[in-house]
């Protein structure tokens, strides 16, 4: 029941109202049993139909009565052969629906019945549009009416442009019509998909849209409708249309030194790369990682080719797997290059000691996002040299210094020669985008002069500036200027936190992403070789979220202590991570740590002084694969006696930790939890109080 005033005491209702309700009660008490009886006995007499119509007018939500009505229509249509009679039957149905809608224009049953009747094809569609303009005039936001309109448009085959015109009319009647803006977004998306006239036509249309929507928020800057639409439009301009490759490990131009390690069947791997940190670790194989701008599927031997020169058979058949909870989609994909190790701890290689490897992504189509968008952008590749043998530490350092000395240009991904032409058009497209962004920034600044406290204008300005920032990045700006701009944007977000306090954590989330962009810029600055360790220090950085993972693939030691993180989602991308300090954050539950179970090299985990065990609601509970999300792990549980609580087993059973620090979490006071933890992590040193805290 919605919008009915509460009656404090029984006496408050007027006598007339009371009488009306009492007579309805009597009517319903009589009608319901007799209609259910008619329905059961398939009784479709005139009397039965009249009763049913009466019930539906009293209560259009009585779904079984609509079902009775449909059976009756089927029965009547069969018993009459005359076309006019058929039309009359249908007309009567539509009249009944109309009367029911007058009682409740949000009745699912009534609207569906109308669709069902219309789908019989015995009634003109034009009258449906007359009805629609009437109901949308009464309530322009009724989503049932809009849904029915889309149905009628489909039935009649109304062209997209014509329907788009209808939404323009609705918006001009009242800017605050989110339903119309929504419909517009759907229609335009369809139009763009079908547009064969080239990019310029789509671009021209987008520019017109900006004018329409700006008109709207200049009229009422506090109305959400236009702002959400504007935000979508902006995305249409700046966001790439499909996923792109944005990072690899080993990074482009890096040198790998591979030896046999002390550990049996394991390799010792050292990776050096100009202007990047030296990474050194022990693993059963050499990991290769690909990072994309969004989750993708279709990464395999056909879409990713790994050429080696001279050819090495170990690289010929690699099997790529998504890193994450989905078996299908991931932003990060990984594979491992395995080399056979002989008993005398030397590598079984076909005489080779040195070779170079080219990793080329997406020569053929096949890598797509969950929305089905194919991978965009020029073909990307990463060139890596492999060196085998017993190099000592000094030699490793030499390689690093040598590379430093070379002072190679920009690191990261290179584009294949063949894609140069495509690249030219990309830059041109960038020019159009920057032009739009400049115009829009002007407009929003104008609005902010009139409405300095509009949080919508403020947030939009930040987004526009951020977008312009990422476009000018490719235009080789000075890093110092960039840092200054990022800091200015952070300042704007801080202001917004004060204007709109209830949503402050959302803005702090956005701000975290800007802080991380600054971190990335800092990492790209030339540093002395001795500082190039694989530690990333983000201690006390006001982070509410972690992102930019594509830039951190090399990280082995990560200090995130004293931030505001609530989960480790996304951390699975950090496949080389060995040591994580996430103490003094806001982790609420063990399930928030589930992504860490996907890190094969993680050994030391410090989660001290979080809030595990302090909250009854676990906000990561259904975000991870478990029996609840239909990832049944019965095979795992079968060989193991069940651990209660299940979260402990789920998160920790596959971790190979040497140290786990839980100090300062309420959960350490629960003997049940600690018992479960000890059972799942028999060879891990658990730290649960400050005196035994690990260094």
């Amino acid at each position, binding site marked *: 029941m919605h919008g009915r005033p509460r009656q404090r005491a029984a006496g408050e209702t007027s006598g007339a109202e009371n009488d009306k309700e009492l007579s309805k009660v009597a009517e*319903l008490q009589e009608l319901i049993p007799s209609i259910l009886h008619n329905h059961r006995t398939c009784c479709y007499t005139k009397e039965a139909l009249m009763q049913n119509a009466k019930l539906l007018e009293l209560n259009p939500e009585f779904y079984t009565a609509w079902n009775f009505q449909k059976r009756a229509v089927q029965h009547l249509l069969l018993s009459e052969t005359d076309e006019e009679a058929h039309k009359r039957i249908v007309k009567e149905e539509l009249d009944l629906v109309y009367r029911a809608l007058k009682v409740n224009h949000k009745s699912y049953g009534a609207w569906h019945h109308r669709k069902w009747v219309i789908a019989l094809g015995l009634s003109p569609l034009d009258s449906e549009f007359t009805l629609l303009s009437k109901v949308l005039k009464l309530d322009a936001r009724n*989503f049932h009416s809009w849904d029915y309109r889309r149905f009628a448009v489909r039935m009649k085959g109304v062209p997209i442009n014509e329907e788009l015109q209808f939404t323009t009319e609705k918006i001009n009647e009242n800017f605050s019509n989110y339903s119309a803006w929504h419909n517009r977004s759907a229609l335009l998306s369809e139009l763009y998909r079908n547009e064969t006239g080239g990019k310029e036509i789509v671009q021209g249309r987008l520019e017109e849209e900006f004018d329409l929507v700006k008109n709207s928020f200049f009229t009422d800057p506090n109305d959400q409708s236009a702002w959400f639409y504007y935000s979508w439009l902006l995305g249409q301009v700046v966001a790439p249309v499909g996923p792109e490759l944005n990072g690899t490990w080993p990074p482009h131009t890096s040198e790998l030194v591979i030896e046999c390690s002390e550990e049996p069947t394991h390799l010792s791997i050292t990776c050096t790369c100009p202007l990047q940190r030296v990474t050194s670790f022990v693993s059963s194989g050499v990991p290769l990682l690909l990072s994309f701008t969004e989750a993708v599927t279709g990464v395999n031997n056909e879409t990713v080719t790994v050429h080696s020169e001279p050819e090495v058979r170990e690289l010929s058949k690699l099997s790529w797997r998504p890193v994450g909870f989905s078996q299908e989609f991931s932003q990060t994909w990984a594979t491992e290059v395995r080399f056979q190790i002989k008993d005398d701890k030397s590598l079984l290689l076909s005489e080779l000691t040195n070779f170079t490897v080219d990793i080329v992504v997406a020569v053929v189509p096949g890598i797509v996002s969950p929305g089905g968008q194919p991978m965009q952008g020029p073909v990307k590749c990463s060139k890596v040299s492999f060196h085998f043998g017993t190099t000592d530490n000094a030699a490793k350092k030499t390689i690093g210094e040598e590379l430093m000395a070379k002072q190679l240009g920009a690191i990261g991904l290179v584009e294949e020669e063949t894609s140069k032409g495509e690249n030219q058009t990309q830059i041109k497209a960038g020019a159009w985008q920057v032009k739009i962004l400049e115009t829009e920034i002007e407009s929003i600044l104008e609005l902010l002069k009139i409405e300095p406290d509009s949080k919508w204008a403020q947030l939009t300005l930040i987004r526009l500036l951020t977008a312009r920032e990422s476009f000018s990045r490719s235009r080789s700006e000075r890093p110092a200027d960039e840092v200054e701009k990022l800091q200015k944007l952070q300042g704007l977000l801080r202001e917004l936190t004060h204007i709109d306090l209830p949503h402050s954590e959302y803005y702090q989330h956005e701000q975290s992403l800007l802080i991380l962009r600054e971190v990335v810029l800092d990492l790209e600055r030339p540093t002395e070789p001795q500082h190039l360790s694989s530690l990333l220090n983000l201690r006390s950085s006001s982070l509410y979220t972690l992102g930019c993972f594509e830039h951190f693939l090399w990280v082995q030691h990560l200090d995130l202590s004293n931030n505001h993180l609530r989960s480790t989602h996304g951390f699975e991308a950090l496949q080389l991570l060995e040591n994580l300090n996430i103490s003094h954050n806001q982790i609420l539950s063990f399930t928030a740590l589930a992504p860490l179970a996907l890190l094969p090299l993680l050994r030391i985990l410090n989660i001290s002084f979080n809030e595990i065990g302090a909250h009854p609601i676990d906000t990561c509970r259904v975000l991870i694969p478990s029996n609840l999300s239909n990832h049944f792990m019965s095979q795992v549980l079968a060989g193991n006696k069940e651990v209660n*609580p299940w979260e402990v087993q789920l998160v920790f059973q596959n971790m190979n930790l040497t140290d786990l620090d839980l100090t300062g979490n309420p959960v350490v006071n629960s003997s049940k939890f600690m018992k479960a933890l000890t059972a799942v992590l028999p060879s891990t040193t658990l730290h649960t109080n400050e005196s035994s805290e690990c260094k």
Partner: protein
Amino acid sequence: MATLHLQKHVDYIKSLDKKSDFDSLVTEHLRMSGAYWGLTAMDLMGHLADMDANEIVAWLLKCQHDCGGFGGNHGHDPHVIYTLNAVQILALFDKLNAVDADKIASYIAGLQNEDGSFAGDEWGEIDTRFSYCAICCLSLLKRLDKIDLKKATDFVARCKNFDGGFGCTPGGESHAGQIFCCVAALAIAGALHHVDKDLLGWWLCERQVKSGGLNGRPEKLPDVCYSWWVLSSLVIMNRVHWIDKKKLEEFILDCQDSENGGISDRPDDAVDVFHTFFGVAGLSLLEYPGVKAIDPAYALPVDIVDRIFYGQENGFTDKL
């Protein structure tokens, strides 16, 4: 500072069964839902034992049809909504073995269309609400293998909109109730990669209005039932801290009828069992003391869900 009038709400829900006024007559076709709302609220408030489980289950079983589906009441046609509610009630009472799970599963599987969508019943109305009902119900029965789950989640994904939200069918406008159905269905099916969590999280946190209450769409009035639809979606995506939880709690408590019990859509409106449940469920997600934890996707108390999937009865903090 307002507090939860727990005992008054318990008494209010208990009183509903005996009524035969206008309200109970116009809702008689959805009595199964009413029972689910009332009973789950009772369990969250620690009073499920006050209800007569045997009597309720006996009535519930009378609402099942030969096809396996349940009607909203005795004598009413089967529908996927009431089939889910019936299974949820059986789960509450730990009586899932009182029904033939395969039969129910085959009824639901029969409602799936070629494009992955679900009809609500034999009359073919399509809506992502029914996708949720089907997926949630089959999951509780551990029979998800009876449908094409990939197609089912792909259909839900096709209903995604420009604002990150979801509609009834492809092209339908985003609506918080619909968003809950789609996000929860994807969560249960392990397909949350279809959800743009930051974009949708932003849209959802903007549902909070000045009074602290949440609305279901932009420029609409706040309503207690959205405390559930919006909040559960935010909890599923781990974005619930993007709203002001304290102000929402105050709004829900303001909607209580402090004299006669029950919670309404807005302050001083008439109470009903629907809003009473969603108010209590909202408070549960807000960690209000004295209210049991609810699972944001299954819309059942956490201990019930853990019992079904792990044979472990105690909720997260009770485990301590």
